[in-house]
């Protein structure tokens, strides 16, 4: 029933938006996006506690269409449909049959209404901008959380209505969201300003009966913006305080050595520091972020949980099974502290070289400072054909048997992706 309510909100928003046009207005449609085909080969991490919980795919292929359809006419009405169509295929080594899993996701579907040049209303399924964090937003209580280990970030939105007042000095937005469980619906607001030279600030707040309250501060500063050669250096901070924990805590089970999800008590907090810069001349973009979660598990708790899940003692693993689902829903959020570093070279040169101008490199690493396990992604991207590229990618997760990334179901994987933009 609640999904129907959310769908009705989307439909109503489109109807309202279309109705706002006068008879002589014509809608213009613009479609853009990309078509990806991907082949992945992976080596299973057989020592992972998740090894037995899901079938592992050594070889898989996937086709994907990521598109945005935008419709507009003057600036009184706009709308957007952001969708992802996917078809994954796996050749079963047991039966020889191809197992296909098609899916279509509507990431965003909303309409924008303008009331003069000051007030904007967005109605429908949308992603609400919350935090300054790049790889993750630790203080965000609203949006589906980003997954720092995901190779592809599909940013699904949620049914919401947002009103925004944008002035040159400050912007104020207030919003209400509808979740599947109606009692989880809530409302919030954000006040942001770039009036201070070189600084972008925002204060946000959110409340729902299920999430309790959340307050967040975001600040971005370019400290050396006036210094040539240092002007691309930016730093940012995202900090949040919430009245209720979102993730389970460790607790001892009744079976000796087992682990049961407990509940964190009291106010919880999280914060993130980040910095980025583009190195002059060589154009390498560097991003680094550190984030801390007060409700993450400490190293001894993580050790105890993974030890229980991997135990061969009778009943211990069975009594700890609830932790499997809990850990799976919080990738890169199991521990307390993480460090992320990313390097992107858009092209090796930018001098007209017919080969080196068309080869780009990317690499990122996520280190759990709690248990010292890590997750690395790297890729080489070539773009010899206009509006397309071919990427060779690698993922590697490593750590001890009782660590977060040491229990990643995939130890190493390689992929080949062909991408066409339209």
């Amino acid at each position, binding site marked *: 029933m609640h999904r129907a309510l959310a769908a009705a909100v989307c439909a109503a928003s489109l109807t309202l938006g279309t109705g706002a046009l006068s008879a002589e207005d014509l809608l*213009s449609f613009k479609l*853009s996006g990309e078509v990806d085909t991907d082949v992945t080969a992976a080596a299973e991490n057989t020592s992972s506690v998740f090894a037995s919980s899901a079938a592992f795919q050594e070889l898989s292929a996937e086709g994907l269409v990521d598109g945005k359809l*935008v419709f*507009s*006419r*003057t*600036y009184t009405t*706009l709308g*957007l449909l952001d969708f992802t169509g996917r078809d994954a295929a796996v050749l079963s080594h047991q039966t020889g049959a191809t197992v296909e899993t098609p899916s279509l996701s509507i990431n965003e579907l909303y309409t*924008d209404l303008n009331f003069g*040049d*000051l007030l*904007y209303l967005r109605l429908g399924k949308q992603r609400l*901008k919350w935090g300054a964090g*790049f790889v993750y937003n630790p203080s965000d209580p609203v949006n589906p959380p980003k997954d720092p280990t995901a190779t592809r*970030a599909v940013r699904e939105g949620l049914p919401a209505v947002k009103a*925004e007042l*944008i*002035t*040159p000095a400050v*912007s104020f937005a207030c919003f209400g969201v509808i979740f599947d469980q109606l009692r989880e619906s809530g409302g919030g607001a954000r006040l*942001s300003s*770039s009036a201070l030279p*070189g600084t*972008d600030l925002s204060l946000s707040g959110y409340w729902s009966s299920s999430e309790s309250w959340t307050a967040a501060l975001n600040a971005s500063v*370019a400290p050396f*913006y*006036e210094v*040539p050669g240092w*002007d*691309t250096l*930016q730093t940012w901070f995202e900090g949040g305080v919430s009245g209720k924990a979102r993730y389970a805590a460790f607790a001892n089970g009744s079976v000796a050595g087992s682990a049961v999800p407990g509940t964190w008590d009291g106010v919880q907090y999280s914060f993130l520091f980040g910095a*980025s810069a*583009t190195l002059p001349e060589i154009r390498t973009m560097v991003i680094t972020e550190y984030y801390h979660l007060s409700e993450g598990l400490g190293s001894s708790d993580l050790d105890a949980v993974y030890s229980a899940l991997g135990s061969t003692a009778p009943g211990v693993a069975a009594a700890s099974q609830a932790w499997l689902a809990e850990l799976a829903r919080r990738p890169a959020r199991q521990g307390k502290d993480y460090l992320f570093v990313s390097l992107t070279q858009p092209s090796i040169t*930018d*001098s*007209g*070289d*017919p080969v080196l*101008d068309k080869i780009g490199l990317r690499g990122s690493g996520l280190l759990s400072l709690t248990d010292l396990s890590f997750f690395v992604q790297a890729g080489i991207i070539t*773009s010899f054909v*206009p*509006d*397309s*590229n071919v990427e060779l990618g690698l993922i590697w997760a490593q750590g001890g048997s009782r660590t977060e990334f040491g229990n990643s179901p995939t130890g190493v994987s390689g992929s080949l992706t062909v991408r066409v*933009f*339209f």
Partner: protein
Amino acid sequence: MKTICAIVIAAAVSLPLAAESFPEGDPAAYIDAVDAVMLPVNCKARMAIVDTYATGTDRSSEGFFIRKNNKVVWVATAPASQKNFALLRSEDVFYERFATTNKVVKTSATANSRGGETSNLDLTRFNTNLDYTVSYLGEESLDGKACYRFELRAKNRKLAYSLVHLWVEKATRMPVKKSFFAVSEKVLKYYTVTSATMKDGRVAEVQMEYVDALKPEDRSRIRLFDVTPLKSVPDQFFTKEYLESGRLFPYDF
């Protein structure tokens, strides 16, 4: 008597030559008028850019921009992989929006965010007197056109080239050539106006060619067209929040 004459002659020789005065009045006002011929203060326009290199390769991109006096937003429309890339200049601050996400970061005036020979400054700064102190150097013929020559000295080196020389055709008030110098006063690059179409006393279409003075084979050809004055432009279009929202800049061309 002879002594007096000798003293008078010596004094006359030692007097500095009088500065050449600009025949059309105030050089700064004249430059404002030249800027107005090129682009109205509030306007929209389309832009096509082709970068060519010594290797013979070239790269094309297209976009449009919207200008409200000293605020400009430039949005890429081609190639497909760069759709949604945007460059925002809000007075003295520059922002860049990545093509694949709506992530907005600060960037610098002198960076070449879209690549090629055109810097962020070249794409978004159209108010000469805001950035430079103008002085008149004299008349000169260039490409068979009678021109005034001006020297522009940067008021803020972070936001402008240290030194610029500008040639303006007397008959049309159109720029003919602009040379950009480094702090060392060595020519970095220059552009020449290769063609222009006028309508109602201002530019409707203009083609310029930027040349890297150190590597003359590396060039960027810019075609500015569909220049359309706008009665009003919302200030909201030139905020970081608007750029992050992913909303269109909904001007049809």
